[in-house]
């Protein structure tokens, strides 16, 4: 057994050693060194992203003498594969930009540097960052791996013309209110809401938000709480929009997020909940350009007219990117210097101006607050709440979406199958609890 293990380790190690690697040996002076950074490919602004890579590298070279080599990944799975091979071989990117909801999983691998007090000081102090953006950096303040880099809070787009025509002055702040407004706005060829029921991610964000607002964070002290009545209510509300309230286009059972944006862009829906600022690029080229606005999504849970005791008025999941430094990196000091540079006000301003993603830097965020076009995003960002920090979150997320996927056949027939929904939620609860029980 031992011999087999040894051989496998040797073969795998030698194969991977030749596959990837970063240069340099250690110390703080960066002259002649290269830092590798892995970041998600920006499909909306590919040209600008390439220029941004060059600018960052040039500036970092000026500051430290080291060059930065950027690599991109297309999907979270791509990124995971890169992390797996790098972690196994102990070589690869020094710095990764991770999605916020993926940070707990990355933390669970123990492959990234936990930031001590000294490290935070070198990054410019924790105060440099908006407190709300630090909500998903680690399980607690003394075990943080993620440095907030950008913020992409979720908001709701609304069609100003349609609302004005119906005599609605602003979007409701409760889900029940929104449903009533949507009913009023639904008429021939136009629906109140555009919702992507077939998206692989959107559904869980709705269910999570409505549950959290009702006081159920879905995971509490290692226990899954998907069997709580608040979650069942969330599913019934979310599915009910199409099945019983009839405020969503029946074709939405097959929609991904992009199709919901397209429907709203064609003027066929009054509200488009669960979109980030990146939707602006598409909408500004659509028929509703100049005639739509953004508002925060309702923060009062279904069945209530005010936030109940114990409820959290979450306007969005804490969304965006965190920067993490690989534990195997031979140039940790240099990596931290780069993270500092990227989270300083200057770099954050350049990033915001290029890609439209909100800064995590407190000073800059304060300046942007004054811009009325950004009001909804800034407000949502400040009211964003981190999803549960557990390595099991990916599994729980999938279990939450699965309930919606398996409910679609009934939904398409215009009904909610109560008994089936209950059994699906029960199944999701057991999957979630099973995943939490395996957490180490």
């Amino acid at each position, binding site marked *: 057994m031992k011999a*087999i*293990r040894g051989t*496998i*380790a040797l*073969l*795998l190690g030698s194969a991977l050693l030749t596959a990837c690697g970063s240069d340099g040996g250690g110390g703080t002076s960066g002259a002649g060194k290269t830092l590798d950074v892995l970041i998600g490919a920006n499909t909306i602004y590919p040209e600008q992203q390439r220029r941004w890579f060059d600018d960052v590298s040039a500036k970092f070279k000026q500051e430290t003498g080291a060059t930065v080599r950027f690599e991109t990944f297309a999907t979270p*799975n791509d990124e*995971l594969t890169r992390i*797996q091979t790098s*972690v*196994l071989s102990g070589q690869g990117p020094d710095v990764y930009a991770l999605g916020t909801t993926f940070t707990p*999983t990355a933390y*669970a*691998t*123990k*492959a990234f540097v936990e930031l001590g007090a000294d490290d935070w000081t070198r990054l410019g102090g924790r105060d440099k960052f908006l407190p709300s953006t630090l909500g998903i950096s680690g399980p607690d303040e003394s075990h943080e791996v993620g440095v907030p880099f950008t913020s992409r809070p979720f908001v709701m787009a609304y069609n100003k013309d349609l609302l004005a025509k119906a005599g609605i002055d602003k979007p409701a702040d409760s889900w029940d209110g929104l449903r009533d407004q949507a009913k009023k706005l639904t008429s021939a060829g136009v629906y109140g809401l555009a919702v992507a029921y*077939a998206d*692989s991610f959107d559904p869980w964000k709705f269910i999570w938000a409505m549950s959290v607002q009702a006081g159920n964070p879905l995971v509490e002290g290692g226990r899954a709480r998907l069997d709580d009545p608040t979650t069942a209510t969330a599913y019934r509300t979310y599915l009910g929009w199409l099945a019983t309230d009839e405020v969503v286009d*029946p*074709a*939405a*059972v*097959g929609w*991904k997020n992009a199709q919901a944006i397209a429907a709203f862009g064609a003027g066929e829906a009054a509200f488009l909940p669960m979109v980030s600022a990146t939707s602006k690029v598409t909408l500004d080229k659509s028929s509703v350009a100049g005639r739509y606005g953004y508002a925060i999504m309702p923060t009062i849970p279904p069945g209530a007219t005010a936030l109940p005791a114990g409820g959290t008025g979450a306007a969005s999941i804490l969304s965006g990117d965190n920067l993490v430094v690989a534990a195997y990196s031979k140039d940790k000091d240099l990596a931290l210097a780069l993270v500092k540079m990227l989270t300083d006000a200057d770099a954050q301003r350049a990033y915001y101006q290029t890609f439209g993603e909100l800064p995590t830097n407190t000073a800059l965020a304060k300046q942007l607050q004054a811009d009325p076009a950004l009001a909804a995003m800034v407000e949502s960002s400040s009211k964003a709440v981190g999803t549960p920090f557990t*390595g099991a979150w*990916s*599994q729980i997320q*999938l279990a939450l*979406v*699965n309930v919606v*996927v*398996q409910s*679609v*056949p009934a939904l*398409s027939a215009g009904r909610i199958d109560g008994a089936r929904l209950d059994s699906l939620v029960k199944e999701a609860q057991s999957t979630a609890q099973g*995943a939490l029980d*395996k*957490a*180490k």
Partner: protein
Amino acid sequence: MSRARRVAERQRPLWMLAPGGLLLVLVVGFPLVVAGQISLLDLDQYTFRQWLDAPFVGLDNYVEAVRDSSLPHAVWVSTTYAVVVTLITLPVGVAAALAAHDRFTGRGLVRSVLLIPYVLPAFVVGTVWRIILQPDGVADNALGRAGLDAGLWLNGPRSFWALVIVQAWTAWPLLYLLALAGLQTVDPEVHEAAALDGAGWWVKLRRLIFPYLRGPIALGLVITFLHSVNNFTLPFVLFGVPSPRDVEVLPVLTYVESFQNFRFGLSAAMAVFSLGVVAVPLLAYLRAVRLT
């Protein structure tokens, strides 16, 4: 066995197989051993950093896969859909081969066009069919105009048939290609002799042509079945994850366990099961062509 033959066998230069054999061990044997090893470990997001030290759990992953996961359901869905696809492609492929075999104007063009579904990347096929089959899409509109019930194709019971239709659409040209190759091995004199004897077309087909086609068609059926069972891209692109229950096929389930749930050990156990599923028809085929 004669003494001379035994000597000849002893003197065969078997060492010349060494380079190929070594490659086979590296490319096929090594990953297989690693997959087997992983399937015995409790390997997940918490342990993969030092994966060789992940807790050894014996056959626990196999037990969990059979008892507590969707594996049995996925094996059932995968094999039934693959069998149905294989059965559909057989008559379509053979009919197309018979039609494209005889000489006629534009035969080259027709032969090329028939191959289009087969040469398109699965990702493109999946994306195009997803657009066709989405609610209120091309398929629903066409059916509606014909007075038939339009409905949900990408979820619910019909999704199984959507998967069968699309996979059959992309898979039948292989049968056509192999049947056509088989037809070309038929000796022209056989046709002449049959014509002289006054054989009708059906007798000719059944008694003379089909025996030539048996080998290539058997191979085509096995490959079609294996391709269908192992197809990950098409169901993944058509239905996304999590899969609707009616199309929860084995490769997608294995993928989800690995890359969404990070249960690498469990996923490896599932992969070993898939190997069993594909080994059955493969062994049957090898036996049939006496290569065992």
